[in-house]
């Protein structure tokens, strides 16, 4: 069972990496297309390039943020200045705050992705709810990660006793 989960995690990571690489290449190519069309005065114009690049940037942000969950920038002022036990309490508190924040984000993102299913972007007709799905996925990953952190530190404490 553990093995299956491990494999699943491995393939999930590979899938996300593949998506992130494709997104960045997509951003590069669409932006270059936009320059080329304008600079070489090509006989057609592509109204969708900017919109598509922005769409990809939204996915890069939220998918990328989910991928590096646990490695986000934080301030290490307390590290090494207080006892490990106090540090653990600070850690639990920090994770609970994150849970609280991301449950709000998740809720709002779900509301938005349902409310905007009938709206489309002007040039490419991308469904607006697909922008919010990225936010929801990201919030869900953060929520699960932070909950797991809290439960894990509780369990470790139990073993120590």
């Amino acid at each position, binding site marked *: 069972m553990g093995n299956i989960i491990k494999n699943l995690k491995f393939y999930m990571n590979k899938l996300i990496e593949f998506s992130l690489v494709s997104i960045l290449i997509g*951003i590069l190519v669409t932006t270059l297309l936009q320059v080329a069309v304008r600079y070489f005065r090509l006989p057609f114009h592509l109204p969708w390039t900017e919109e598509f690049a922005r769409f990809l*940037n939204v996915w890069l942000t*939220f998918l990328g943020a989910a991928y590096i969950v646990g490695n986000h920038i934080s*301030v290490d002022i307390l590290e090494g200045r207080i006892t490990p036990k106090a540090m653990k309490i*600070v850690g639990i508190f920090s994770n609970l705050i994150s849970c609280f924040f991301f449950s709000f984000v998740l809720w709002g993102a779900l509301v938005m992705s349902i409310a905007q299913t009938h709206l489309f972007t002007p040039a490419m007709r991308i469904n607006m709810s697909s922008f919010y799905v990225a936010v929801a996925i990201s919030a869900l990953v953060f929520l699960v990660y932070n909950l797991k952190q809290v439960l894990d530190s509780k369990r470790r404490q139990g073993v120590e006793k």
Partner: protein
Amino acid sequence: MIVFWLGAAVLVMLILLFLKVPVAVSIGSASLFFIFVSGNIPRWEIILPLHMMYGVNSFVILTIPLFVWVGQLVCHDKVSKNLFAPIRQAVGWWRGGLMQINMLVSGKFAALSGSAVADAVGPSRAVHFMAVEAGYNKEDSAAATAVSSILSIIIPPSIPLILWGVTAEVSIGRLWAGSIIPGIMILTGFMVTVAVLARMRNYPKEKFLGFRPLLKSLYYAFPALLAVLIVWVGVFGGIVTPTEAAAVAVIYLIIISTTFYRISLKEQIPMIISTAKESASILFIVAVANVFAWILTFTGAPAALVESILGLTSDPLLIYVTIIFVLLILGTIMETISLILVVAPILSVVPEYTGIDPVSFGIVCSLVIGYGLLTPPFGMLLFVTQRVTGVPYMKIVRKALPYFITLILVLILLVAFPQITLYLPNLFYGK
């Protein structure tokens, strides 16, 4: 009242940051707090996802992943090695040459990528170990590594200035153009400081190898340096937007690094993945900070704050100096990007009320926030340098003191003579 709640929200943010809550979550939770206490905000449940999404659904913000990518490409061993070489040959034979190199290399990589911490971890670090091997004092060299990294904030293309431009609604081209002269001033000041210190502390020097090897090394560095030219000419010539310039620089560097510098296409993939990781950590903060910025605009808190300050004093200079001090203190606690994202929407109303030019104001504020990276007790560049060089924190601070003369002098000049920052933007883009 709204000013009071704004202060409370900032306090909540600082407390959460202090308790090791990730920066993005701290800003987000403070925004939620602000939403609740200021009341009367319709449909508050959708504000978070709505404005987080719109924060990054922006063509200008696309410059961030693209310039992070540029940074990854030029920091690859095979490219950065070739970028070092000509500088080493040109100034290595001066007394204290390797520390001059540290300054110049930072200046050069600043012109290529634009992230202070990346510079301290990457190229500057390499020069530091080169210098220590050549017999330089370890502490002196570590201090040079830390201070020189600050150039990335001020020499275009600078990511902090992009973020200032987006959040305070100032033209990014103008901000970049305006930061060129201050950047050169700081670089020159640092180099003079090194030259003086080199005489006083008797630093070693290397042999001059002759002009032929110098020209040869220039030949190998030239293709990568051309990327700087592409960005500068493209943006300052008004040919492309910063985003497009970044994309052109990326594709140019990919082509150059596979053909001229012989980096295989397979090696490009890990670079793209690191680009995604690094940009996501910045972009996510950008997204959340946009919620904060929106609430500020919606409630009109920044204007209320400035008006209440104007009630106390109407002297623009006094206000300017106060802002600089506050930013300096905040800059020691928070890291550059998040701090800019939090304060720029608040401060963006200041030029309107005081008559300070918004371009000059943006550059000075971003620079001051950058100074915070070098100021104890929490200056982040100092921590990073301590980690990569192994030199204790306080020793770096003590050895870095002479460089502060330059930093303070430049700051005073910029505040006293805004023309320094306005000359080039007016030249490039007209008044």
